[in-house]
């Protein structure tokens, strides 16, 4: 199966092309089923590749499949090649697996939408791009996928483009991503300059053997991190992710929870030898940005009322955790959290989509309540997702979050403290969400007229095709922690699997205080999670304490409006200054040259008198001049 690893991105690409040509004819639901089966097929091939890799010994788990030589230009040799190693197969597995589930879900969710086929067209294109990203053998194939997912994100966010807010959100996502893309490009140029190649093997090998200097490695790592900040929504480029909730919920689940936003973490993990060779303050910056983003987003999530916005800020926060792990040298923990987060965040988003669908597209949580009676399966699976993200054992999120915090403590207790505070807030706002949506009094009766409802408005459970993925993901959220349990070395499946990829960059914390006392920290984590849940219940369920939801947090610390004010005011003046310079100086220089030529021509024109004798005189003078020269050369000198 490893030989045909190219099938993995090829199948969604085929789906894209088929729907492009025949989508309108296929219609609903055939185009959806086609798309889902393509991604499902890719998943099966990936599973086959996984077992193939498993059958090899640890050192041999590194298979490169070259499709064709893409750019042989002098010393730059870039192939369109796929790399099947533990990291890329892990990523491909959950991208295709969760992708298939979400495709199935979307068949139900997008029912009745006039642009049904187009949705699956973009979804397949997205899966193709994402698979190029993770399976790429070199930075350029990854970048191809990187740009592809950005473009598809734009298409899908502004899917209902007739709505102004959706169109604006799409543009915002694209532009912010572009700023990050600049970082990736600079990183690529520097990497090529330092290592002479763009392939991961070449770059990592160069880093491990010391061929890349500390300065260059730091520059490469930080530039790639800028790209990761854009794609994975960290400070200061996170602003597009909350707005991206304008897209349909399957999009939010697939792209903005499980797959695209993890691309940044994946990229940093791929080049972990470079990060290891860089100066020590580079990973520290990454960790600080990660944990700051985590806390920042968590505070905002506390005050949001839109069911999807809470989850969006939650995603930003959890991604912050992953970067905290990367910065602390805990790549395996980062990947672990990425996988578990994919499970429970997709579950939460799909669940919220189910709620929205059942509430006839109402998204304000203040108008929901007591839905667990009317939507039992949705509620049940959502509660499992809630427990996972809040960090309650034995659900998946607890184990992965704890692993990260362990490494964070080993790096610096301050990072640990901030991370713990964020975990507390996570438990708090997620509990708030669950209570507001599924428990309490039913508040949807008061607003039934606004929905154009016919008589009695009653929220209903979603169809089976939407509930199936919820159940599957809930199951995975329960057992997902088994990938890497901290109790004994034998249970560290993920670590053993990923070790060949990250062994150079992985931090060794066996000697640290944190590792010796990991069960203490485990207990602290449990207590913090339960405390957060209890506090939230006290505020929102029992109404014993007042709710703290200041407007500042609801507005996202005024971050968006500050950017808008800056860009509209001083920013605009700067841009107009640059435009003026271009018009006057650059264009003026170019036009000026033309004018000088014309003026010179007018002056030179006066020599053309048309009188033969004047020309003869000129010839005569030239002859005399020549004679002088020859005379001086031959006779005098």
């Amino acid at each position, binding site marked *: 199966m490893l030989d045909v690893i190219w099938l993995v991105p090829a199948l969604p690409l085929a789906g894209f092309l088929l729907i492009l040509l025949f989508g309108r004819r296929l219609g609903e639901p055939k185009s959806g089923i086609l798309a889902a089966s393509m991604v499902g097929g890719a998943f099966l091939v990936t599973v086959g590749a996984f077992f193939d890799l498993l059958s090899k010994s640890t050192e041999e788990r590194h298979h490169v499949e070259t499709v064709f030589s893409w750019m042989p230009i002098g010393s730059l040799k870039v192939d369109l090649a796929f790399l099947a190693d533990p990291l890329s197969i892990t990523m491909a597995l959950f991208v295709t697996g969760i992708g298939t589930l979400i495709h199935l879900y979307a068949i139900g969710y997008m029912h009745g939408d006039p642009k049904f086929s187009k949705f699956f067209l973009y979804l397949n294109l997205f899966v193709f791009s994402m698979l190029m990203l993770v399976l790429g053998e070199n930075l350029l194939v990854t970048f191809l996928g990187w740009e592809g997912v950005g473009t598809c994100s734009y298409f899908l966010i502004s899917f209902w483009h007739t709505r102004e807010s959706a169109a604006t959100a799409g543009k915002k996502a694209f532009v912010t991503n572009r700023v990050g893309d600049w970082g990736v490009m600079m990183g690529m140029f520097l990497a090529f300059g330092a290592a002479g190649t763009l392939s991961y093997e070449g770059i990592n090998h160069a880093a491990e053997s010391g061929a890349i200097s500390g300065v260059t490695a730091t520059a490469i790592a930080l530039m790639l991190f800028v790209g990761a900040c854009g794609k994975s929504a960290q400070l200061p480029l996170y602003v597009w992710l909350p707005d991206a909730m304008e897209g349909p919920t399957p999009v939010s689940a697939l792209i903005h929870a499980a797959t695209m936003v993890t691309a940044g973490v994946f990229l940093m993990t791929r080049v972990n030898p470079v990060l290891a060779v860089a100066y020590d303050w580079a990973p520290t910056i990454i960790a600080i940005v990660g944990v700051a983003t985590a806390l920042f987003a968590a505070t905002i999530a506390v005050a949001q009322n839109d069911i999807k916005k809470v989850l969006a800020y939650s995603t930003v926060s959890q991604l912050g955790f992953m970067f905290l792990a990367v910065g602390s040298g805990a790549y395996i923990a980062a990947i672990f959290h990425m996988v578990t987060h994919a499970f429970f965040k997709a579950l939460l988003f799909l669940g919220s989509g189910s709620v929205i669908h059942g509430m006839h597209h109402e998204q304000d949580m203040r108008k929901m309540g007591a839905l667990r009676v009317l939507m039992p399966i949705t509620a049940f699976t959502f509660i499992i997702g809630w427990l996972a993200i809040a960090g309650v054992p034995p659900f998946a999120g607890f184990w992965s979050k704890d692993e990260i915090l362990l490494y964070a403590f080993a790096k610096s207790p301050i990072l640990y403290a901030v991370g713990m505070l964020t975990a507390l807030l996570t438990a708090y706002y997620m509990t708030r969400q669950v209570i507001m949506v599924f428990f309490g009094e039913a508040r949807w009766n008061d607003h039934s007229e606004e929905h154009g409802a016919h008589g009695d408005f009653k929220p209903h459970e979603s169809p089976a095709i939407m509930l199936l993925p919820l159940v599957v993901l809930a199951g995975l959220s329960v057992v997902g922690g088994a990938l890497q349990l901290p109790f004994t070395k034998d249970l560290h499946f993920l670590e053993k699997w990923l070790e060949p990829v990250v062994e150079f960059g992985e931090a060794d914390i066996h000697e640290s205080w944190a590792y010796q006392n990991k069960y203490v920290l485990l207990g602290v984590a449990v207590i913090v999670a339960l405390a957060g849940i209890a506090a939230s219940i006290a505020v929102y369920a029992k109404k014993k304490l007042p709710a703290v939801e200041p407007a500042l947090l609801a507005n996202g610390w005024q971050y968006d409006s500050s950017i808008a004010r800056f860009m509209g005011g001083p920013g605009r003046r700067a841009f107009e200054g640059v435009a003026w310079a271009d018009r006057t100086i650059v264009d003026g220089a170019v036009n000026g040259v033309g004018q000088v030529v014309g003026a010179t021509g007018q002056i030179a024109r006066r020599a053309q*008198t048309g009188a033969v004798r004047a020309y003869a005189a000129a010839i005569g003078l030239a002859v005399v001049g020549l004679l002088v020269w020859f005379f001086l050369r031959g006779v005098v000198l």
Partner: protein
Amino acid sequence: MSLLATASPTSTWYLLLAAVLFGIGAVGVLVRRNPLVMFMCIELMLNAVNLSFVALAKRLGDIGGQTTVFFVMVVAAAEVVVGLGIIVSIMRKRPGATADDITALKG
């Protein structure tokens, strides 16, 4: 006087004379306005060149100089024929024109 009578002209004298004749011809071309007279001055210049060729042929003992003069004369004849033909055609259109009146190339 006796010294002068016994001095014989060397080829250098002929060359110098040719130079002077050439200069006079050049001045004539620049100063005269009548096209026919300008042409005659060009003939003066050609004759100066012929003279210098013959003088050098004598000095170097090479008959090639005289052959060259032969060909120069032939070509000069052809040139005069064509040149006068052109002058005739122009003068027919504008009788009494001088070299200064023909300014069609003025830019």
